[in-house]
């Protein structure tokens, strides 16, 4: 997928690695603008992975529960019966072909396909086995770079 068409997409599913990148110091300054312009969805399982890392590393610095904060910044999606069924169909198909399946990744793919969202990730290779299902995967670093370029063009015109 080329970068021009990436920018046309305005709704994304972010996985835990993308969440970590978005909240890293390289992106922190521009994140409010990104969140204002683009709609991000996060699966509860990805929120769990992200928050596990945050609590593990920064528990002493943080005074409150962060799920409420995350749900104000992102549209949090809970796993329901339809998502579970879709994920199990994909997992079964991969296992049949001898491909290892990781739970949160397969659930992200299921949600992305069901809701017609592109996945933003910092580790695109995680999703290589799922390309045959037609899921769109975008490197979050490329996305942020393109967003900053577009912002610069907008400011200078």
């Amino acid at each position, binding site marked *: 997928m080329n970068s021009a068409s990436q920018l046309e997409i305005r709704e994304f599913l972010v996985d*835990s*690695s993308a969440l*970590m*990148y978005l*909240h*890293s*110091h*390289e992106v*922190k300054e521009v*994140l*409010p*603008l990104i*969140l*204002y312009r683009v709609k991000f969805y996060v699966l509860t399982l990805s929120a769990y*992975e992200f928050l*596990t*890392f*945050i609590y*593990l*590393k*920064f528990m002493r*610095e*943080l005074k*409150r529960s*962060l799920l409420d*904060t*995350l749900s*104000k*910044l992102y549209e949090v999606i809970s796993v329901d019966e339809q998502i579970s069924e879709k994920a199990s169909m994909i997992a079964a198909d991969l296992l049949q072909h001898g491909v*290892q*399946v*990781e*739970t*949160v*990744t397969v659930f992200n793919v299921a949600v992305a396909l069901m809701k017609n969202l592109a996945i933003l990730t*910092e*580790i695109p290779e*995680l999703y290589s086995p799922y390309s045959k299902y037609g899921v769109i995967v975008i490197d979050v670093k490329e996305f942020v770079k393109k967003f900053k370029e577009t912002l610069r063009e907008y400011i200078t015109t």
Partner: protein
Amino acid sequence: MKTVAVSEDTWRKLKELKEKMGFSSYNELINLLIEKWHLISLKEELSKIDVNIDMNEARRFIKYLKLQTT
């Protein structure tokens, strides 16, 4: 276009702000105020997760989690 009713005092403040910002319409001004409000709210929420994430460490953590569950 829709019409909204505001008090005399609000009208005066909006007019002053519109001139100060150099906008040609109230529509532009109100849109800017809405955008500012959203950005301030987002910054407030983001300040609650203001941590210094080391991406190399984060990547190692994610890969460790994924390997544990395959």
